[in-house]
């Protein structure tokens, strides 16, 4: 079973990397870009769990390691 976790900085937190990428895009001739937020994608492969269990287990993984709740939000997508 495959699952995808997206980890992003919370909206309330300034994303210095995103701001730098936005400036670079402006310099390359893409002035329409209003905001850039840089996040992480984690693709997981799991075995021996149902889709329901996988979702719960991955939430637990995010709470314990994959995301830092002080600065990050996450979403979990079980792809089946």
């Amino acid at each position, binding site marked *: 079973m495959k699952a995808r976790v997206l980890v992003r900085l919370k909206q309330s*937190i300034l994303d*210095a*990397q995103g701001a*730098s990428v936005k400036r670079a895009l402006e310099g390359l001739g893409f002035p329409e870009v209003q905001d850039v937020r840089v996040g992480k994608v984690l693709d997981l492969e799991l075995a021996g769990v149902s889709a329901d269990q996988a979702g719960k287990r991955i939430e637990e993984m995010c709470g*314990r*390691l*994959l995301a*830092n709740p*002080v*600065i990050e939000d996450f979403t979990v997508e079980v792809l089946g």
Partner: protein
Amino acid sequence: MNFGVVVFPGTWSDCDFHYVVGEVLHQQVRYVWHRDTELGEFDCLILPGGFSYGDYLRAGAVAGRSPVVEALPEFVARGGMVLGSCNGFQILCEAKLLPGALMRNECLQYRCQSTHLLVENAETPFTRAMRTGQVLKMPISHGEGKYYADQDTMRRLREKSQVVFRYCTEDGRVTREANPNGSMDNIAGIVNEEGTVLGMMPHPERAAESAMGGTDGVQIFHSLLGSLVEDGTFLKR
């Protein structure tokens, strides 16, 4: 006093701390491997700088869940002291032994330079040999040292005087220009509520002999030594 210097795969300041504690301060010291959980013999554990486990995922994230770090709450509860510098500070925040988080420097550059630190609280076991308002000089060397905490946490840190060091100018002014990484309130180091766990981005072990360009880092160790009382416990805050 008996010190342990924790070594993770990727730690780089372990030898420097070991040298300063053993050769400069003449205290007992040995290395502690990241899988060790027998910590009973130590008065103080040091989490040095470096890139523990490659700092993959987030700086200090994997180390923050390692066996030795998971044994720290019990070590602290029975009266042990913990000093985390640089990556050690990141690890202590990831392990929730200290509040907040350390993020990518606002300038996005790795900063390796000398900094001045204002002593905000000289009543912890780590700062007792200093005086509040004193300016120390110590180097930093990090890419992810911007201290962040939410507003409630920041208020609690101020109320409980947990901010120990702030980046400042040579004459002790806390300014934006003196802030090398964009840390909130120019924070360079904080303690837990009890004052027994110190996390700081600067490197005291690199300011420990005049040949290194300064000796201000040693004052942290002198404070610790001066806080240890005869029955083997520490004077708290």
